[in-house]
């Protein structure tokens, strides 16, 4: 089903990939800037996310979520993997070292993006106290702006379950302005 969805071609069709990349590279970099304050690591992660997208594109199913939800789900897994490996002081296996491609002007752009997302990173850090399932959900909704329905789809839970988790998480973290303004709607 939906084998011809354009997103499923990007792993083996350079033209389709370039179109996807151009359309989403800014969104991916902002996604990362909401979680990482090191510009070199952000560059590496940008490369890692698109490599993961290339690898995973064959498995995309529209029934599992919208393209933006799918992309953010992939990106979230990549960032989480990097944090886990960083905790062990190990490097992520990667084919493309993003930081090696940074020139001074590009580095300044990455730093600007990171600077603009300072508040989001405070929320991201605050979420570290939540159980993993709750954290994943609230990240995608409060931090990245997905609808509850989209976030629930990408995480494989029912929207009702997602709403319960969001309410529970909000009770646990009530001091952050991004969370106090979060509307739980599907």
């Amino acid at each position, binding site marked *: 089903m939906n084998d011809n969805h*354009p997103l499923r071609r990007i792993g*083996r069709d350079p033209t389709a990939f370039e179109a996807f990349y151009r359309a989403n590279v800014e969104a991916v970099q902002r996604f990362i800037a909401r979680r990482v304050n090191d510009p070199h690591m952000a560059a590496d992660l940008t490369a890692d996310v698109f490599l993961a997208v290339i690898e995973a594109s064959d498995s995309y199913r529209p029934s599992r979520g*919208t393209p933006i939800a799918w992309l953010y789900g992939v990106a979230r897994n990549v960032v989480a993997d990097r944090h886990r490996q960083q905790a062990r002081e190990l*490097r*992520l*296996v990667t084919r493309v070292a993003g930081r090696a*491609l940074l020139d001074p002007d*590009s580095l300044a752009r990455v730093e600007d993006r990171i600077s603009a997302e300072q508040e989001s990173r405070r929320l991201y850090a605050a979420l570290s106290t939540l159980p993993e399932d709750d954290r994943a959900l609230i990240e995608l909704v409060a931090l990245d702006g997905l609808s509850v329905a989209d976030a629930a789809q990408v995480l494989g839970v029912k929207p009702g379950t997602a709403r319960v988790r969001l309410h529970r998480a909000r009770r646990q973290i009530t001091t952050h302005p991004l969370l106090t303004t979060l509307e739980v709607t599907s």
Partner: protein
Amino acid sequence: MSTHPSTDQRPLDTFETALLGQLTAVVDERAAQVTTSPSRRLTGRPARWAAAVAAAAAGTAALLVLPGGATPAYAVESDSSGSVTVTINQLADASALKDALAAKGITADVTYPGVGKQCAAGRFTEAPAAGGPPSEANAFKSSVGSGGFSMTIPKNMIQPGQTLVLESVWPDSQSWMVKVAIANGPVGACQLVDADPMFMPPAGPAPAGGSNEVEPTAVATAQ
């Protein structure tokens, strides 16, 4: 989000353009593989990535390096704490690197298979990851530069009966990667097999020479 460019897209900056070039090469490689090996299922590839990442979590690291002009091929230094720092700039002098590590008290197996080759899996048993949180005493510290990588091995991290395994994969003129692992017990000889296509550079004529030219095959195996 769209799979097609939107009309309000800004031009890519230098980093984004360079990254697009490298990523497109990966897609080209996959496309070529589909063309030349129609029976190969692309859906197997994520599993291999997953295996690589899982290996890292268990105590193995793989470090990707882009070529540079740094020389010599390697350096081994120790500090007052007893930690040993290994720097690899080129995939050369594997035997000498193994000897230099031995001089610092680290039993090592350094293997640099040639272009398009790798060691068959299963030649050693990987040591289980240390328990507890990572610390100065039980975790490698590594850094990757433009021309090589450095790794610091804490004192006594490699226990008696264990071997530090450094094994290259995917060596080509563009970049190379070294897998790092700790083996429990003996490390078998490297049985050369074709490199996993995932680690191979895009098809094309091989460049001649280069600052990071690799040895055809160099095997230095610890006792």
